[in-house]
């Protein structure tokens, strides 16, 4: 019998037998891309604390990843992650959650922490829909799409560029990929993990069940195909006019800059205040 074991098996919580996702859901591909990045950096799951909100994407780390995982309330993972990072400045804190979680209800925590430029990695799985609750419109659902709460088509302008919003808010690393780009995605995640600052990665991910099937954009494979067709690199995109870019997905790393990082700034403040060199917020016991 074949003894091949999945290389990331060791990163998965032993008590988990299956992913919780629907057949063909992109969330599993994102999960694997994250694990591959961690493996690729030669890091251990114990170097991380994962934080997620509520939604299908939020179940990527919870309970799947064999690590410290905080599965929080809907929309708030970044706010919880803030406290974790301040308490454990030496750990990598990674937030994995959906577009509804991070950009609808959680939008404020996203922009405020991008502003703060606190070191953490935020992976926003953008499937353009509320998957877990049954296919309602998200702020990322294109205009005119019929969802369960918009049976006559959505009538709101949508966030066509959440990466752009996060850049405007002040993040120091921002990239966008789709589940048709797992290798590139993994590379960007690696960079994000190493970034001293707020690193945001938007992944367009197929939800074949609530988006594809209901909205008639097809099954998992058709959706992947569509991602491939519509994607265009930043470099190429720059050559095109806004009209030509319509419906295209610009992928790549948009921003990678250096600016003051919040944990370091806090450390400095505490040094100033206490008049001595002392361990940051990590001063007490535990």
């Amino acid at each position, binding site marked *: 019998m074949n003894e091949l074991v999945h290389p990331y098996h060791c990163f998965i919580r032993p008590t988990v037998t299956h992913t919780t996702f629907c057949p063909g859901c992109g969330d599993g591909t994102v999960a694997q891309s994250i694990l591959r990045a961690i493996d690729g950096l030669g890091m251990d799951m114990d170097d991380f604390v994962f934080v997620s909100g509520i939604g299908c994407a939020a179940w990527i780390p919870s309970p799947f990843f064999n690590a410290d995982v905080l599965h929080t309330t809907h929309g708030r993972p970044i706010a919880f992650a803030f406290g974790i990072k301040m308490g454990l400045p030496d750990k990598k804190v990674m937030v994995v959650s959906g577009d509804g979680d991070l950009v609808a209800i959680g939008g404020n925590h996203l922009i405020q922490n991008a502003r703060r430029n606190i070191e953490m990695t935020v992976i926003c799985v953008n499937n353009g829909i509320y998957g877990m609750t*049954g296919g309602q419109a998200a702020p990322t659902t294109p205009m005119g799409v019929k969802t369960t709460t918009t049976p006559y088509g959505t009538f709101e302008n949508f966030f066509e560029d959440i990466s752009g919003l996060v850049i405007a808010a002040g993040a120091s690393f921002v990239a966008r990929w789709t589940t048709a780009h797992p290798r590139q995605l993994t590379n960007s995640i690696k960079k994000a993990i190493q970034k001293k600052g707020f690193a945001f990665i938007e992944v367009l991910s197929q939800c074949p069940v609530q988006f594809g099937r209901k909205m008639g954009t097809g099954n998992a494979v058709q959706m992947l195909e569509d991602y491939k067709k519509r994607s265009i690199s930043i470099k190429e995109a720059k050559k095109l006019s806004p009209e030509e870019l319509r419906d295209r997905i610009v992928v790549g790393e948009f921003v990678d800059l250096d600016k003051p990082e919040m944990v370091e700034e806090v450390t400095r403040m505490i040094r100033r205040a206490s008049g001595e060199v002392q361990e940051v917020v990590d001063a007490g016991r535990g």
Partner: protein
Amino acid sequence: MGRTEILIGGVGGQGVVLSGILLGTAASLYDGKQAVQTQSYSSELRGGSARAEVIISEDRITDPEVRRADILILMAEDAVGRYLNKIKPKGLLVIDADLVKGVTSGDYDILAIPATSIADKEMNNIIVANLIILGALIKKTKLLSVESMEKAIEASVPKKAKDLNLKAFRRGLELS
């Protein structure tokens, strides 16, 4: 017939709740009976647990919960451990024989239907395994009239799926 309590257990995507709705609708709207249908399911949309309860009665139904199932329909292995203890002594246990293997015999009748494989092979769509089971159940128990059930199917499933569902239900009628 006084009060019949039916419990259906399976996983999300198998049409467990639809089965409950069909029984309830047929009883309530077309068979002159009283019916209450309730349900619960876990958050996973596909593959998570799903349960439907139906109570059918000639009289007004006060207590709306299934306490001891006269009829227990199990459509997934997971459901066995969860619900088998809910069956009434001498009750009827209906299983999808393709997916439910771990049922030992007990103080109940078993109606085992290879619904998924019939649906797969004959209808090319395993999604209608539940209708096959309903057909077999109705045939065996005469709980509701076939006409009421067919009316309920026509009223409840999307138009384009109607024929397939009716076909599966009728296939089930041949099975027990």
